[in-house]
């Protein structure tokens, strides 16, 4: 099986702090892969390395068979690798609908497209996706006026609007109320199965990630501690110790 995203021996340090050390990870096309680990174990640093937020120290990151570790953030995004943010980032002073419209992927990003009006089928697609995350009634509200949970859903819908090949989700359920989490897990599965989008998810909510992911990588102190299917990870002594702070 060829991996859609193939990370080999990636290391990244900030000054003397080693955030990632020799991390290797593979995400198969069409799969859902989880990344877990205690706070400060280097999960978000790994995400940032993948999307080109900062250069990596050593190693290789390949997406669709192409080395992307030297590319910049917008270039990687345009390849179809889109990330969401742990703190949730939306355009606060624009309505939910306009947030969606601007998130559409542009194939012809020339001068004509820049100065053209928004085509109606794009608006229809934006509304369909807003409906998908249950925000259709709120489409005319400013995104900054939505509740935190709703902003998370909007950010997901915006990412879907971009029609990515792969989505990197940084703690999609953090700060979302428990009732909403069930619906969100359901949506993420739908995104994977029906939209055919490969998912790489950082998650602290064990129930969620065990339910969603087919394969899980556990990081601790910047290093890969364990990897395997959820059932194995759950019973892995080292993982339990890392979370409980033993050893």
């Amino acid at each position, binding site marked *: 099986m060829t991996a859609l995203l193939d990370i080999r021996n990636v290391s990244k340090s900030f000054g003397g702090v080693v955030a990632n050390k020799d991390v290797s990870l593979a995400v198969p096309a069409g799969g859902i892969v989880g990344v877990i680990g205690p706070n400060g174990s280097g999960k978000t640093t790994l995400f940032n390395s993948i999307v080109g937020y900062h250069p990596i120290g050593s190693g290789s990151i390949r997406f669709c068979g192409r080395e992307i570790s030297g590319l910049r*953030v917008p270039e990687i995004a345009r390849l179809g690798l*889109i990330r969401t943010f742990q703190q949730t980032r939306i355009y606060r002073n*624009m309505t939910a609908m306009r947030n969606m419209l601007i998130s559409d992927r542009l194939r012809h990003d020339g001068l004509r497209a*820049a100065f053209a*009006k928004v085509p109606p089928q794009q608006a229809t697609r934006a509304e*369909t996706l807003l*409906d998908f995350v249950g925000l259709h009634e709120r489409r005319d509200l400013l995104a900054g006026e939505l509740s935190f949970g709703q902003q998370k859903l909007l950010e997901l819908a915006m990412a879907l609007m971009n*029609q990515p090949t792969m989505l990197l989700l940084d703690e999609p359920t953090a700060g979302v109320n428990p009732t909403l989490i069930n619906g969100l897990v359901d*949506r993420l599965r739908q995104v994977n199965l*029906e939209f055919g989008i490969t998912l790489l998810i950082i998650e602290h909510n064990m129930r969620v990630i065990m339910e969603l992911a087919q394969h899980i990588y556990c990081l601790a102190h910047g290093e890969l501690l364990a990897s395997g299917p959820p059932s194995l990870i759950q019973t892995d002594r080292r993982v339990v110790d890392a979370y409980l702070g033993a050893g």
Partner: protein
Amino acid sequence: MKRRGRRAALYTALAAAAIVAPWLFPSYATQFAFLCLMVVFAVTWDMVGGQMGYNSFGNILFFGIGAYACAVVQRDSGFGYAPGFAVGVAVGACAGTLAAAVLGPGILALRGHYFAIGTLGLGVAAADIAAGWHYIGAGSGMTTPLFPGAIQDRAKFFYFLLLALAVVTFVTSRRLYQGRFGLVLNAIRDDEGKAEAMGLRTTGYKTMAWCVAAFFLSISGAVAGNLVGYIDPRDFAFAGSTYGVWMILMAIVGGRGTVWGPVIGAFVFHITQEVFWTYLLGWQRVAMGLFILVVVVYFPSGIVGSLRTRAPRPGGTEREVLPERAVVDPTRRQ
């Protein structure tokens, strides 16, 4: 339908008023021309400063470039007044836009306060260069050729020219804000990092926005140079402390980031300034300062922003539960 009819009536009335104004108040024609210039100032500043959130203190640069480029063409081309002026305006527009295209990628890479300081430096540097460059008259400036017609026609001519420019600038910017261009500018204003993470070509769009602003500003500079007749490097072409600051104040007074805000801001600012100048001579700057202070403190979102009272919008109630199953047809994905 009724609303559209009312709007059409309003626009017609405004157009009629604008056309008869110089005949009704002939002694104010030059004032009206300056008012149109102020509209161009505010609308172009707002494109970058309001819609895109990049507070530029150096847009005056393009005004000055337009003024000088046009005057140089008029001086050296050997054409008559009309063709010389026409070519001068075109050359001025190209020179200003080119300057924005060249400077844009570098200057617009600065963010927040750094961008503000950087652009401030641009304006100051341009004034110093112009004041020392003999080809364009150095410190003694340049005079533009005399308008060939009668004196009362002169004011009307420049008024209608600047009126047309203001209308075209406004209509063009409004049209641009309705499409993808406007969406990108607002996205950059709200969260540029997010825009990049979504794959938008932010640098390209930022430069494009600055070029559009520079295009109209440099034309206004070319025309205004001829209206005033004398181009001083510091007090007219690169007058950062007057025109350069007014641009910003007018957009803020009217409501930055709104379509009509800069236009209304230009009217209010220009008229207030003239009134203060007439009735409070000696204290006009103090009065103007107080006026600005009141606006900034009590109406930080400007006239249009404050008028747009936040009526509760539909769908404003809390609902934190997703519907059981999303109603979406995945085959819709294009």
